[in-house]
């Protein structure tokens, strides 16, 4: 399956890019994060991140479909 990934803040720095499209065998967000964390050296434990799929918050067990846009959101610091 193909997924579009969005990276923000320190995940963007770690990945060296703000977005990318990847081909992956992962079928849910948890598996996809494990794969990307390994590839890009992400150090956040999943419980410190929120997940968004197609522009809306979801949970870590969310199943994925081809062409989904996925973002792993590190702890926010607006304001």
């Amino acid at each position, binding site marked *: 399956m193909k997924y579009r990934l*969005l990276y*923000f*803040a*320190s995940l*963007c*720095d770690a990945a060296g890019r703000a977005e990318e499209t990847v081909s992956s065998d992962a079928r849910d967000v948890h598996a996809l994060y494990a794969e990307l964390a390994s590839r890009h050296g992400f150090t*956040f434990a999943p419980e*410190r991140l*929120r997940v*968004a799929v197609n*522009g*809306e*918050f979801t949970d870590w067990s969310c199943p994925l479909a081809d062409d989904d846009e996925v*973002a792993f*959101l*590190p*702890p*926010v*610091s*607006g*304001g």
Partner: protein
Amino acid sequence: MFSISAAPIDAMALQCELEATGVGAVVCFEGRVRDHNEGRAVNALSYQAYAELAETEGNRIIEETHAKFAVEHIVCVHRVGDLALGEVAVWAGASAEHRAAAFDACRYVIDQVKMRVPIWKREHYVDGASTWLHPEPDRAK
């Protein structure tokens, strides 16, 4: 209305959006770039947002606030990009018939925005270093 702005925040224009007949109280909050944080001298900030989801979540907060408090209008804008010391990073305002609701609503909006909306701050220090802030839940301010 919640929005993300790459341009400097025009507080006067935003406050005008709070006007309505029967409004007796207006409360506004400005969050500005400080020259220090946790003991380190800061000389600039950058904010990054997941703009689409930030606006969705910000407007959800505003809807919640309308449901919780007897307010007329609520406006909140958060800057993104590079900000100098003293610039307004976030502005929130609420208008209501009575002041208790205006204070409560303004504070609820800014508290929730800081906790929930996908926006990140990078601090640039006087010594040349910089870092993204990813506060632990119990340290969020």
